């Protein structure tokens, strides 16, 4: 039977629920969405073009300005790519400190994503609570690195600042508070009947669809795909790392994966602080000429930096592949079509945690 399109509804580029401009064109029959199309390109920065020809000392600052929410991981992946090219060894203490800062950044990103989802399904109280908790996480990021967003913490061969024992103690105390609060909010989210009505069984993406669409990060893990690149990272392997997976593949599962990953991050930070090796935080070594493609796990999924450098450490060519692009496409093609009504399109889209700033470099 041929489906007839009633009306085509554009959502965005300016929408009260969306943090960044993106346009979603939904073709609908009644309340049901038949097709959706994503239109990007409202905030192109041209940052890859700016990076070319500059020494890595400048590019590492530009890299963390690709995205304001997961800036630490952009810095980390770029610098690990450069270390991969130049065979620079990182002292163990620096590697652990990198993990601590990266996990704090991941927590901040996941809590913001969940805030955004709760805000979209009109649970503003929980949303504001989550933002309040995120402040504590950002305060700790500031305590270690001196900044809240663009931290400039990692340098090739190490990190810039050491973790003081009293800072570590204060951070652990704060994290205990964050864990308490997050357990409470997770409980509200898990058991709230109104939340369940807007989340469970909506925007379902099966495991096969997730694999076919090459989704990454919590979006894929919520559908039961093993895709966490931290499993391959040497420091994370030392810490004994297991990824969080759920099988439902709906909005609820995606948000719950993020909630559970926050607890996992807290555990990882505690393990890091407990087993923090002694020693230097900076190693030597200069950049060599070479070419590499290095992937790391950003809060939203796989982040790849393909870099080519000359012997002076200048970046001749760089290409960034950020996680959100496939998630957004998968969202448009499979998740939104399964949404129950037009009202669920926004929340389904937000549940995949789209980052437009990352996509439009």
């Amino acid at each position, binding site marked *: 039977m041929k489906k007839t399109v009633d009306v085509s509804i554009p959502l965005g580029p300016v929408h009260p629920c969306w943090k960044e401009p993106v346009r979603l064109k939904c073709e609908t029959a009644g309340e049901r969405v038949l097709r959706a199309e994503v239109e990007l390109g409202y905030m192109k920065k041209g940052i890859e073009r700016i990076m070319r020809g500059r020494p890595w*000392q400048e590019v590492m*600052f530009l890299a963390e300005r690709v995205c304001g929410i997961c800036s630490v991981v952009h810095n980390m992946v770029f610098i690990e790519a450069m270390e991969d090219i130049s065979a620079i060894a990182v002292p163990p203490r620096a590697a652990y400190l990198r993990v601590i800062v990266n996990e704090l950044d991941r927590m901040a990103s996941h809590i913001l994503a969940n805030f955004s989802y709760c805000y979209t399904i009109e649970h503003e109280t929980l949303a504001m609570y989550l933002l309040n908790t995120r402040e504590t996480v950002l305060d700790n990021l500031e305590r270690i690195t*001196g900044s809240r967003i663009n931290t400039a913490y990692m340098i090739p061969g190490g990190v*810039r*600042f050491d973790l003081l024992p009293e800072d570590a103690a204060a951070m652990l105390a704060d994290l205990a508070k964050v864990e308490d609060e997050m357990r409470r909010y997770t409980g*509200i989210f898990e058991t*709230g009947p109104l939340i369940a009505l807007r989340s469970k069984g909506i925007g379902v993406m099966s495991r096969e669809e997730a694999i076919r669409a090459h989704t990454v990060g919590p979006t894929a893990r919520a559908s039961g795909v093993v895709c966490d690149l931290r499993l391959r990272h040497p420091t994370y392997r030392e810490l004994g790392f297991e990824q969080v997976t759920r099988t439902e593949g709906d909005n609820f599962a995606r948000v719950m994966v993020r909630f559970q990953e926050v607890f996992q991050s807290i555990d990882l930070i505690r393990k890091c602080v407990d087993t923090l090796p002694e020693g230097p935080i*900076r190693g030597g070594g*200069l950049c060599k000429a070479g070419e590499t493609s290095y992937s790391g796990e950003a809060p939203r999924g796989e982040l790849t930096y393909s870099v080519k450098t000359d012997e*002076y450490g200048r970046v001749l060519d760089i290409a960034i592949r950020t996680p959100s692009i496939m998630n957004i496409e998968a969202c448009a093609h499979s998740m939104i079509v399964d949404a129950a009504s037009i009202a669920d399109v926004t929340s389904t889209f937000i549940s995949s945690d789209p980052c437009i700033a990352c996509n439009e470099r």
Partner: protein
Amino acid sequence: MRSIVYYVREFLRPEWLKDFFFVKTAPLETPSYFKGYPTLTDKECTQCLTCMMICPAPGAIAVLRKKDRWEPEIYPGHCIRCGLCVEACPEGVLSSGRILDVTHRDKTAFSSWYRLEVDDTLCMRCGNCCVSCPVNREVDPQLAGTGTSASDEVIMRIEGGRVTILHEEKCTGCKTCETNCPNRAIRVARMVEGVQGEEAEA
């Protein structure tokens, strides 16, 4: 009905009420670890230009002559508050948060220098780079218009039809040679390395 009861019970818990009535506000005092714009301390600037060399943001810092002394000036519109200038300054002229304390305690520092690269296929031996270089001019005021010099102490000179780099370590990274080269044959690369331990103390 069940959901209303659920939410009423949830929002009447003591923790909820405490959170509601004693809302956490933003800190009114800037914490000591906050990395702000670099500010001047009372130490004397020796015009070594390390801060300008290490700064990743173009036009964020300049060392200017003020009456009887040199003074670094920060342009907040360009500064990205990375704090590298504070960490790199050997005299401790600038301060921002507790970067200086940490640097002192961890014995960390940055060492930075410049490297010059000449592309022989593009270079046409005009000598503009050697003549325009302010360090070359200072070392050898008699430097000829084609870039030939009698002194061995210059950064670079034309020898046998090609630019020869003699004293790379003297380069201050002003990039005058790069701007004056008609063919973009000469390039200046900034090299920075983070060091720690005895090396950093020296």
